[in-house]
Structures are given as structure tokens and as C-alpha cells.
């Protein structure tokens, strides 16, 4: 029976006949409602200071409109915002703003929230009120705005801004007014319905004007017959209003459960009641809407049930928003002796939270302050092993398997917990209520949910960071590419320009090469003819001698590579090297020249043809040259004793040179290469 195919009219008829659907599970805790619902809602004297948090609803807080020291009137807005999810807060009485600072909040965490602290002046003077009595003739948007400006957010517990629900944008089949109040102890809605049924009816009329629902269902648990009667009387004349009693079972007042009980429909897993054509308002919200529209009064006070065994005077009070808990405790005559340790629960015993500080203020969602005596509350830290009895599964109104959720939550297997639909848990506490092992199941689920939300946030953050990083990387890459593209284009342009000149340039280059070649040719031509055209070989011998002398000098001068100083047509820098020769070298050359002259004289008439090639070869490598020199010297020695001294000197030099032969040879080659390059 996922979604019943019944039509809207069928459902309404069925309700009229007194038939209801049921929701699975649920528990029947002791109600304790008579403790506080026997007397009328009382007015209490103002507290010394009111602590009004700027944010008392789901959504965002508005901007501050007041400053410290400023006088405010009752109903004067303290914040303002254009944000659609923001509702303003108002001064609950006239007085002076004495402080604007973080104050301990009405939240289980006990964290601080920015609050306006007002010191009442006791006059309780309203600002000018602007009722919209003729709301039916006004633009709907204007009425919605008035509801928003009155600071009305759901008074049932969640604190959802009421004006947002008042503009659903979808067809509303059922407007459900929730007066079920299924939590034990709480009687604030009960008393309100009994005493102010007519004003609730007026609020419903405003909502009907805004939402135009097909039918209006006012649901009250059957343990509140007086409230049922009062509302029935108030709604008697409206044919499409139906006051429905609902079987007392916790949590019948849960939004999803009430939709199921009244219409047989189920709100989709992640959806809202409007997805099945239902809009739900709490009776307290209807009362506040009527106040806002017909009196122009913003939401500055609400009914709070003060109850529990540790209070001498449990009853309901009209508590100005911002009234600290301690003030209300004194009003209800708190008996600390009846508690093991001071403990005040804001809300009911099933879903309420313990307040952390006596200064915690009453806010828009505060329906009850439960101050239980020691025997009314569960013993903490009595957790025992789960015996898998499944009482929790039988009690779960959402048909979850609380035990599996518990195992997985406890083991921090968050994925598996989500597989078991952890987020469909409404934290009603029915499972923990029935657990014989006293396991605080809901606490495990809250922990797991918080962990999952944190993980999700972390993941989102990481995802955002990753996206940012990747965007940056992409941007840098794009820039780099753009740069490279620019450079490439510039290079191409240059190349293009150069290619245009290239033709004449290469011609010039080849011309130069040709010229160089020709020059070389010339020099070679010059040398060779010289050698060949000296019939008497004197010139040749002189050249040889010069070469020898030079080489000898070089060897002396620390193995200076001979090749570089050789008179060679291929070496244009020869003269430079010559210049660099020292005086000693020159002297030696003179000696060698003398020897050579002697030799030349002696060799007259002999065939000296082979010396020429030797001379040529010597340009390239020393060894051949050396041999030819040795030949010459040998001849000279054998024939001329007179120049023995000179020869001996030359020999000595040669010996020297031969020692260094190997090294200088290799040096020659490298040096030659270097010089050529």
C-alpha cells in the first residue's frame, strides 16, 4: 500500500466516517499530561533580562536593526533581512538593549549564538500595530509578507519559516492543522486549543485564503477531548473543515506519521508533505498567524508547559521569547531536591534535549520545559548488550531496522547505515524507549548522521578544491598554450621574413666560399711552384731549416704544438704564432739556419726532389718530416765535421723533442682541430 489510489473526496469521506489509517510501530508512553493541563495558561511577570537569539528558526538570521543602549518597544523588529529563509525576531517587551553578544543557545550543544539582551522597562509598551483585518481583499503576497514580518516560524518544533509553506506553488489538497501533541507531559497546544480555539480558527481561515486547499483537517489526539470539543465548536460552520480525533500513539504527531494516519499517503523519502498534496501547520502557528493578521502583533511570546515531578507548580505559561529558563523554573517552584542532579529538558521526554545552562532562553520552538524527578527519567549509562529482540523494529514508525542501524552506526560503517535508510529516521526515540538493554539508539543515529554530514561536507570541500585546482590548471595551460602559439607565430613570421632574404644571402655565402676556395687555391699554387721552381734547392732547404728551427724552438717552449706554427698555406694564423715566438726561439732559428745553409752547400748537385714531398707531408704530421730531417742531418754529419757543434746541439734538441713526441703528436691533432674550428 505504497500510495493509495483513493481520491481526495474518498479520503475526506473516510475521515468523516471516523476511519483513520494507522502507521506501523509507535509506542504508548505514560502521558503525564494531567500534571500540567489542569489550569489556564498563566501570565508570568517579566524576567530581569530577556536573551533573544537572532536565529530561532530553520534558515538564516537577519541583519541587526538595533544597537546597544537603544530603547526598543514591544514588537519592534530586532533584525531584518531580504533573504527568503530569514524571519525577523522582535523585542518581546519594551526596554533597553543592554548587550548584543553571543549567549548560550537553546540547542543541545549549548553553543553560543548572537543574541540581543533586553532589560525590560516594565511598561511593556507595544509599537504601533498594523493589523490586516481586510486580508481577504489584499494581495496574497502582502499577507504572506505580513506573516513573515511577524517572525512566525513553525511553533511545533522544527521552526520552519511559516511564510515559505504559505506559498507552495502546488495544488494543496489537504491543509492539516496539527494539534496532536503526542509527546508525553506537553500540554501547551492542548491548553491553547481549549482556550483559544476561535483564534486558531481565524488563523486557519487566513491559511485557507492563502493556500486554497480542497479540505482542511484539524487533527487532535483522542486523549484531548476538551480541545477536540472546542475546535469542533469553532469550526462547526465551515463545511470543508473537519476536526479529526487521532488514536493516541506516539509519534502520531510526527508530520510524516500524521499524513499517513489522515490520508493513507506517505511522504516520499526525501520529499515534503506537499509532494502528496498536504501542507501541515501546528495549531500554535495558526494562533500566531491570527495574531499577526488581525492584531498586527508579531510573535513575541508563546505557550510553554512547565512540568515534571521536580516542579511544585506545573502549569502552562505565556512566556515572552527570550525568557531565561531559570526564571520560569522559579515561577513553577523548582525543587532541586527531587532530582539526582539538576536536569531540565527543553521539549518532551521523547525528543527534547537537556539544556546546558539556566540562562538558556525560551525561543519560538520551545513548547515545554520538563523538569523530571529522579524516578521519572531513564538511568544513564545503563547500556547493556543488544539481545536482538527487535522491540525497536516493532516500535519504529518509519519501518526501519533500528538494530541494524545501531550495529552499523556503532561500527562506523556509515555506508551500510545509509543502506538501511539511516536518514529516514525521524529521531522520535520510540526504539530507544522500548529497548530492554537501555541502548541510547537515537544518540548513535545522531552521531552517525553527523559523521555522514561531516564526511559529505569534507567531500564537497575536497570536490570544490579539486575543481578549483583543475580550473586553475586548465587556465594556466591555456595561458601557456596561448603564449606558445604567440611565440610560434612570431617565429614563423621571422622565418618568413628571413626566407625572403635568403636567396641573395645564400648566394653571398656561396660567393664567399668560392672566394675563400679560390684564395686557398692561390696560396697552394704559390707554395708549390716555389718549391718546384727552385732548381738549386736552396730555397727548399732554407724552408726546411726554417721549419726545423721553428719546431725545435717550439719544443723548447713547453711543447707548443708545432703544427700551428708551421708555415702552412692552410693556416692563416701562422704569422700570429710567429709574432708570439720568443727571442730565444729566434736565436735557435738562426743557428738552425746556419746549419741549413751548410747543408745546402753540401747538397748542391744532389737530387733533392724527395724532400719536397716530405716538406709537404710535414704540414700534416711530424713523423715523416722528422725522418726526412734525420736523413738530411745524417748526410750533413758525415760530410761536415766543422759544424759538429751545431749538429750536436741540434741532436740534443731532437732528443728532447723525441721524448715529447707522443704527447705533442696527440696535442697536435687536437690543437689543429681546435684552431680549425
Amino acid at each position: 500500500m505504497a500510495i493509495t489510489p483513493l481520491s481526495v473526496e474518498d479520503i475526506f469521506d473516510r475521515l468523516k466516517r471516523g476511519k483513520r489509517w494507522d502507521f506501523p510501530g509507535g509506542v504508548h508512553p505514560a502521558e503525564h499530561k494531567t500534571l500540567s493541563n489542569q489550569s489556564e495558561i498563566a501570565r508570568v511577570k517579566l524576567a530581569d533580562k530577556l536573551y533573544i537569539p537572532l536565529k530561532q528558526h530553520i534558515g538564516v538570521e537577519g541583519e541587526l536593526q538595533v544597537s546597544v543602549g537603544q530603547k526598543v518597544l514591544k514588537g519592534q523588529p530586532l533584525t531584518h533581512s531580504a533573504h527568503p529563509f530569514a524571519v525577523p525576531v522582535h523585542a518581546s517587551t519594551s526596554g533597553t538593549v543592554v548587550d548584543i553578544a553571543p549567549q548560550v543557545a537553546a540547542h543541545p550543544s549549548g553553543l553560543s549564538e548572537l543574541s540581543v539582551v533586553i532589560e525590560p522597562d516594565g511598561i511593556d509598551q507595544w509599537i504601533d500595530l498594523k493589523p490586516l483585518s481586510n486580508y481577504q481583499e489584499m494581495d496574497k503576497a502582502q499577507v504572506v509578507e505580513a506573516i513573515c514580518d511577524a517572525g512566525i516560524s513553525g511553533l511545533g518544533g522544527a521552526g520552519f519559516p511559516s511564510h515559505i509553506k504559505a506559498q507552495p506553488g502546488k495544488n494543496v489538497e489537504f491543509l492539516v492543522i496539527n494539534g496532536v501533541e503526542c509527546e508525553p507531559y506537553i500540554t501547551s497546544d492542548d491548553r491553547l486549543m481549549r482556550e483559544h480555539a476561535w483564534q486558531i480558527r481565524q488563523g486557519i481561515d487566513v491559511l485557507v485564503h492563502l493556500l486554497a486547499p480542497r479540505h482542511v483537517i484539524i487533527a487532535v489526539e483522542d486523549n484531548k477531548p476538551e480541545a477536540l470539543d472546542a475546535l469542533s465548536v469553532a469550526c462547526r460552520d465551515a463545511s470543508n473543515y473537519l476536526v479529526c480525533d487521532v488514536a493516541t500513539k506516539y509519534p502520531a504527531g510526527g508530520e510524516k506519521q500524521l499524513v499517513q494516519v489522515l490520508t493513507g499517503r506517505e511522504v516520499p523519502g526525501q520529499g515534503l508533505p506537499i509532494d502528496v498534496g498536504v501542507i501541515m501547520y501546528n495549531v500554535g502557528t495558526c494562533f500566531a498567524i491570527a495574531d499577526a493578521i488581525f492584531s498586527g502583533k508579531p510573535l513575541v511570546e508563546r505557550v510553554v508547559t512547565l512540568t515534571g515531578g521536580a516542579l511544585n507548580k506545573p502549569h502552562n505559561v505565556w512566556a515572552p521569547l527570550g525568557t531565561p529558563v531559570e526564571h520560569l523554573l522559579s515561577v513553577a517552584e523548582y525543587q532541586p531536591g527531587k532530582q539526582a542532579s539538576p536536569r531540565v529538558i527543553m521539549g518532551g521526554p521523547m525528543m527534547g534535549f537537556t539544556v546546558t545552562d539556566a540562562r538558556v532562553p525560551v525561543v519560538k520552538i520551545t513548547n515545554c520545559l520538563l523538569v523530571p524527578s529522579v524516578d521519572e527519567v531513564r538511568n544513564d549509562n545503563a547500556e547493556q548488550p543488544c539481545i536482538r529482540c527487535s522491540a525497536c523494529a516493532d516500535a519504529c514508525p518509519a519501518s526501519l531496522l533500528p538494530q541494524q542501524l545501531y550495529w552499523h552506526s556503532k561500527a562506523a560503517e556509515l555506508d551500510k547505515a545509509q543502506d538501511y535508510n539511516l536518514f529516514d529516521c525521524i529521531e522520535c526515540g520510540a526504539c530507544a524507549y522500548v529497548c530492554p538493554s537501555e541502548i541510547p539508539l537515537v544518540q548513535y543515529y545522531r552521531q552517525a548522521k553527523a559523521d555522514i554530514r561531516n564526511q559529505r561536507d569534507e567531500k564537497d570541500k575536497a570536490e570544490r578544491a579539486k575543481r578549483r585546482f583543475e580550473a586553475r590548471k586548465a587556465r594556466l595551460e591555456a595561458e601557456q598554450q596561448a603564449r606558445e602559439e604567440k611565440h610560434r607565430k612570431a617565429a614563423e613570421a621571422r622565418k618568413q621574413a628571413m626566407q625572403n632574404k635568403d636567396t641573395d644571402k645564400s648566394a653571398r655565402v656561396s660567393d664567399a666560399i668560392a672566394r675563400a676556395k679560390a684564395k686557398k687555391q692561390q696560396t697552394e699554387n704559390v707554395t708549390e711552384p716555389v718549391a718546384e721552381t727552385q732548381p738549386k734547392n736552396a730555397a727548399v732547404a732554407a724552408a726546411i731549416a726554417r721549419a726545423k728551427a721553428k719546431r725545435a724552438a717550439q719544443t723548447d717552449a713547453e711543447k707548443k704544438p708545432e703544427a700551428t706554427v708551421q708555415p702552412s698555406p692552410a693556416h692563416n694564423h701562422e704569422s700570429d704564432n710567429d709574432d708570439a715566438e720568443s727571442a730565444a726561439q729566434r736565436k735557435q732559428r738562426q743557428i738552425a739556419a746556419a746549419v741549413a745553409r751548410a747543408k745546402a752547400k753540401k747538397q748542391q748537385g744532389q737530387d733533392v726532389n724527395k724532400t719536397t714531398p716530405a716538406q709537404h707531408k710535414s704540414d700534416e704530421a711530424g713523423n715523416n718530416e722528422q725522418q726526412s730531417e734525420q736523413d738530411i742531418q745524417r748526410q750533413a754529419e758525415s760530410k761536415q765535421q766543422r759544424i759538429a757543434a751545431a749538429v750536436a746541439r741540434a741532436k740534443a734538441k731532437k732528443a728532447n723533442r723525441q721524448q715529447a713526441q707522443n704527447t705533442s703528436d696527440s696535442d697536435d691533432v687536437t690543437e689543429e682541430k681546435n684552431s680549425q674550428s
Partner: protein
Amino acid sequence: MKFALASSPHQRVNRDTGQIMRMVCYAALPGIAMQCWFFGMGVLVHLLIASATAVATEALILELRKKDFERAVKDCSALLTALLIAVSIPPFAPWWITVIGTVFAIGVVKQLYGGLGFNLFNPAMAAYVMLLVSFPVQMTAWLPPQSLAEQSHNLMDAISIIFSGFTTEGYSISQLRVDVDGVTLATPLDAVKTGLTQGKTVSETLGLSIFNGATGIGWFAVNAAFLLGGLFLLQQRVISWHMPISMLAGLALTASFFYLLDSDQYSSPWFHLFSGGAMLGAFFIVTDPVSGSTTRNGRLIFGAAIGIWVYIIRQWGGYPDAIAFAVLIMNMAVPLIDYYTQPRTYGHRSNSSNKGARR
């Protein structure tokens, strides 16, 4: 003012695990009384032995595991296991049968798996099966109802025979099992089974002295007493109806089917429901939450399957009774059953909540 913090809900039912276990124990009292009446005081002696052994074993192992054994012993789960063992074994079985069985149940089947809530198998039944397989003679030596037995016996006889093997007058267990004609008397389930193998029809067997028309003398009363205790537990909402009713239904429907097929070969469903440990099993054993299924439909399947297994083993198996075997078999199937019987979560369309939409 410093306020104490606690998480919601702040109210809870006034029934903890210990209370539940104790209530189950109390509900078993009529059945135990009937056992005493028909089969002698032995069961009380075994109850004492088993309880002492169970508490000692539990305390010892929890001490070894460095856990708070006082609190664990107070939850009375070990006592309940001891009670189930004591009522399951024959009243005049030797004392060491109970000791071995209880140590095995608490030490191995329960504590070695992690203690209360973590055991896969029903400790009492696992112990029973272990004993039955290991000591078949002692474990099947059930006495006939006292009215039929040749020798009468009292509490002292029971104590004596459990610890020494003989009554104060020197009778052994096998002597106690014979009737006035000197014939050893079997249990009704055994008798029917034996009768069938001897070619007798069921109705012929039911003519034996141990029977009282349709069911065994004594056994009917014991089962009826356990049924009474079970109804008390249902009324007190200590147990849910799903498992016992589906188990009895599974057994009765299967039995009816075969009985209608051939009433000579197959005993009546009435006989099955009030023989052996049927009622004890249905209300006190199958309902063990720890080793049973946890989903609503799962509990129905679990119970019904046990009923069918009981019939199958009684009818075609080698053992006369089958509660323990059937329970252990289905204990093994529990994770599977639980997985496939997850309820449809509110607002979700499909039954397989596993595939439900994740946020």
C-alpha cells in the same frame, strides 16, 4: 547552575533484559512442575546443577575477558539457558551430562562468540545436540510417567540416581524404565517411530499403555503447561506471536497434510503439537531473540521453517525429536532471512531498502 546532560528519549519502558529473562523463566515454571509430577524430581536437581554451572562458567569467562560479570550475571540470560538445558535432558540423566552441556552452552556457544547478543546459535539447543550426539544412551533414557512405572521414586531417589546412577533402593535407570510387565517404556515419539518400523500403524501404536488416546500420558500435560506459560509471555508482550505461532502452524500444517494423506503412516497434528518438546520449543526456544530472525516477516519464515523441519526430522530423521536440530538449522539461515525480509521504509517505494535512494 550546572545542568546534567542526556540524550533523548529521557523516558523508557520499565523492562530491562534481566526482567525479560526472568519472566521467561517464571513462565516455564508450570511446565517444570508438570515434568516433576509425571517424570520425577530429577528436573529440579538438574536445574540446580545447570544454574550453578551456568553462572560459574559465565562469571569465569567474563572475568577472563575482563568484563563486568556481576552485571552480566544479573541479566539472567545464563540462568535461562541453564533452565532450558535442564528441562531438555532426561530427568535422571547423570549429573555430568548437565555440567558438560551447560559449560559447552555458556562457554563455547555463547561466550566464545562474544557473549550475550553475539551468539549465532541457541546455546541450550547447541548444547543439547552436542550431548545427544556424544551421549546418546544417557540422553534418550526418558522415564515413563510415574503412574506406569513399576518402581516409584522420590526426590532423594532423583538426587541419588543423578549422582550415583542408582536410586536409594539400588535401582538403576534401566530398571526404572520398565513397566509393571517388565517392558522398557519409550517416549511417545519413540514408540510411534519404532511401531512404524515394526509395521504397526500409528493407531495401533497409540493403543500402547503409554498413550492416552491421542497423545502420550504426561507429555500432553507437560506440553499444555508450557503452552500456558507461553500464552502468559504473549500476554505480557515478552515475546511476539510471530515465531511461536508460525512454528506451531508450520508443524501442524505439515502434519495435517501427511495425516490426511495417510493416517496410518503419519501421526495426527494434535499428537505432534503435544509431544516431545513442541510447546517448549515454540514458546521458549524458538523465541530466543539473539539467534532468531529480527524482521517481522523474517520471524514468520524462521518459525514456520522450524516447524516444518521438526516434522521432517521427527518423521523421517534418525532422532525421535527434532526441536534442537531444527532450531540450529534455522539459526544458520537467519542472516539470509534477515537480509531478504527488510521492511519497506516509510516513504520508500521498493521493499529492497538496500537500493533505496541515498541522499
